[in-house]
């Protein structure tokens, strides 16, 4: 795809490539490349290096550490980061709460939170979903009742990703129960160390602890922690979710994972040679490769439209999410099938010791990753929600 870029864009890509591969520790990138779980420290280390060089929050306003980049440059920044297996900046900080505070927050909130958010001195958690508010997010019930100069918050959030590390939480809360559901929601920042906040882990089918439930029991929150205006939270949430959708196709990451499955297949023996030469396996792999190219071209076409100055809502963004998430799942499944029976146990190390041979490469992460990746067609607007958005644009019914 390099040939599609202008000379300046190619130079920029080269500069990013060089930066990621020299400044981000090899050990961290190896962990990402081989599907190992990152610790909190790993993620903080990576984001702080990026932030030191001005590469953590390029999507923010320049005065708060952002870069005045074109849509194509932002694409290159992310694509090269994924190709270099750099741990990505925490999305809750960088693409969610940061832009909301920068766009709708008071000057006090900006000064208080934005520098620390960019440098991940504050770890943010997302408080949107509730047990009864998933795709129908606006039906959320967690309440914030004004009491003098504070809100009293009661209720429950769920699917709080990495909430176990969270310092602060940005929440959608109901501040007016007597109006249309979207019109009574506010965007409130809550210190997770406040009395009455309880974080409970949820174990997932991949065996890991990635998400949590968060309970609020008469939690007192100062009114200055309200972002923007009371009852305008739905507008800010839509803005936030719109930001989330760009880059959600994870094309660079899919390329790395596909290259990895292919490399393992090439060293996996079958009765007639290697798995990479097996006709059915290679047909399946090849179709996925071609489709990944189609996804990338679609992303580039959208970027090209944006670069030409259009900022209209574009149902093609939903195509990116719909197709990109499906491809991520297909690739994770491909890796499981490369491993065969030796990929079916949950193990913590491929070295068995005691005179037993090592397990194949990928044996630790392939199956957990397969189960974990089921989430990508669910979060950020499920595939069904995306189809709904597309058909609305197509049919208007």
């Amino acid at each position, binding site marked *: 795809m390099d040939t599609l870029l202008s000379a300046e864009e190619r130079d920029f890509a080269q500069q990013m490539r060089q930066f990621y591969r020299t400044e981000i520790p090899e050990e961290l990138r190896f962990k990402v490349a*081989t599907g190992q779980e990152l610790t909190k420290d790993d993620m903080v280390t990576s984001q702080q290096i990026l932030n030191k060089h001005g590469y953590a929050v390029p999507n923010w306003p320049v005065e708060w550490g952002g870069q005045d980049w074109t849509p194509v440059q932002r694409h290159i920044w992310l694509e090269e980061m994924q190709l270099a297996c750099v741990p990505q900046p925490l999305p809750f900080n960088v693409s969610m709460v940061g832009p909301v505070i920068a766009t709708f927050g008071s000057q006090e909130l900006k000064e208080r939170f934005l520098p620390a958010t960019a440098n991940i001195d504050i770890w943010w958690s997302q408080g949107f979903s509730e047990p009864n508010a998933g795709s129908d997010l606006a039906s959320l019930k967690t309440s914030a009742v004004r009491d003098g100069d504070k809100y009293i918050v009661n209720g429950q959030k769920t699917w709080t990703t990495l909430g176990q590390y969270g310092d602060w939480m940005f929440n959608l809360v109901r501040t007016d129960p007597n109006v249309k559901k979207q019109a009574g929601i506010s965007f409130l920042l809550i210190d997770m160390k406040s009395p009455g906040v309880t974080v409970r882990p949820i174990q997932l089918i991949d065996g890991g602890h990635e998400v949590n439930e968060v309970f609020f029991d008469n939690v007192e929150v100062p009114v200055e922690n309200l972002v923007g205006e009371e009852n305008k939270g739905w507008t800010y949430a839509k803005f936030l979710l719109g930001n989330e959708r760009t880059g959600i196709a994870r094309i660079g990451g899919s390329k*790395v994972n596909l290259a990895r499955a292919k490399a393992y297949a090439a060293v996996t023996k079958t009765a007639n040679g290697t798995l990479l030469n097996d006709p059915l396996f290679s047909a399946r792999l090849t179709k996925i490769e071609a489709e990944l190219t189609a996804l990338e071209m679609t992303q580039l076409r959208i970027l090209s439209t944006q670069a030409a100055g259009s900022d209209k809502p574009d149902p093609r963004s939903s195509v990116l999410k719909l197709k990109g998430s499906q491809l991520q799942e297909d690739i994770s499944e491909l890796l499981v099938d490369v491993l065969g029976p030796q990929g079916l146990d949950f193990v913590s190390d491929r070295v068995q010791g005691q005179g037993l041979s090592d397990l194949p490469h990928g044996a630790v992460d392939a199956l957990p990753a397969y189960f974990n990746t089921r989430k990508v067609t669910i979060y950020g607007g499920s595939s069904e929600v995306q189809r709904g958005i597309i058909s609305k644009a197509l049919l208007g019914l």
Partner: protein
Amino acid sequence: MDLELNDIQQELASTLNKYLRSEYDAAKREEILRSDEGISREKWQEFAEMGLLGLAIPESYGGADMTFNEVAVVAEAFGRSLVLEPFLATAVLGTNAVLLAGSEEQKQAILPGVAEGQTFLALAAFEPGQRYEVTTPATQATAGADGAFTLTGEKTNVLGGDVADHFIVTASQNGELGLYLVAADAEGLTRVAQRQADGLGSANLKLDNVAAQRLDAADAHSVLSEVIDLGNAAIMAEAVGVAEASLTMTAEYLKTREQFGAPIGANQALQHRAADLYAELEYARSMALYSRLAVTSEVAGAEKDRHRDVIAAKIVLDRAARNISQESIQMHGGIGMTMEYPIGHYAKRLTVMTRTFDDADSLTAELAALGGLIEPQAADLS
């Protein structure tokens, strides 16, 4: 990065779409389809006057000296209106074969007539029982005393061959692939006109010691490969037009056809399938663009990736075309099965055009054999 059409291409697309909407609507097309030749020579003349037939031909041979990018704009517009005249056969396949392999004299003899709309060309590459294999023809070329050749053999599925004035014929001479120029009125040539399911004309040919000139300005293998890549890129551009019109028509039907007291498009089962078709159409557009970039790339070294990129694009496009054509009939219900209603004509065009040079399975096998698009790489394998 700029993937948008330039001003000239946008102007070409908008002028042509407007012309086709008024001058090549379903009724006019039907009339042409039912005519003896199945094409309109009058329309072809109008295409020539609009400069559509010599777009990629150099000025020195009477063309507009533009590129395949403009040819693709025309193909897409023709797809939208299901144009029946042999644009692919003449302006893409035949023209490029002569351009790439012809001598100066041969180009002067053939190409000005193409640009003026006086000459139809056709590529005769397929043979009975050989499916899509074109590099080892059984048709034999024999050298005469004076540098002339004679051809003997049989050709099948010659697109545009029913009206062609000149054929570009593949044949073997001492086991070596060659491209030969044959006049349609040459002695010993028997032509049996055929009609494809999509209404386009073709022909089967019998050659019995037919006089031919060799087109030997370049290696026949590389010319044939490039001509077919260009043909596939044009098919993809055209398929985008056909598929877009199919989806527009299907969406309109979902909105207006009422059953159980409501538009059938109110059913989520149909809405979500329509959304999937929209996604497929976007993939088709992306890959038509990808193939167009591949065949027009002037970046050094890009040529070796050209064929690989075109077939990768076609794998995706074939699936999109199949889904859109099949689903558009299904969503129309019974009316989609009829010849009276246009959707079936679009489905037939998609079905036939995507199988012109290859099918999805053979492309997948070929791309796999070429090593695919991504280098195998794992950080923990040295």
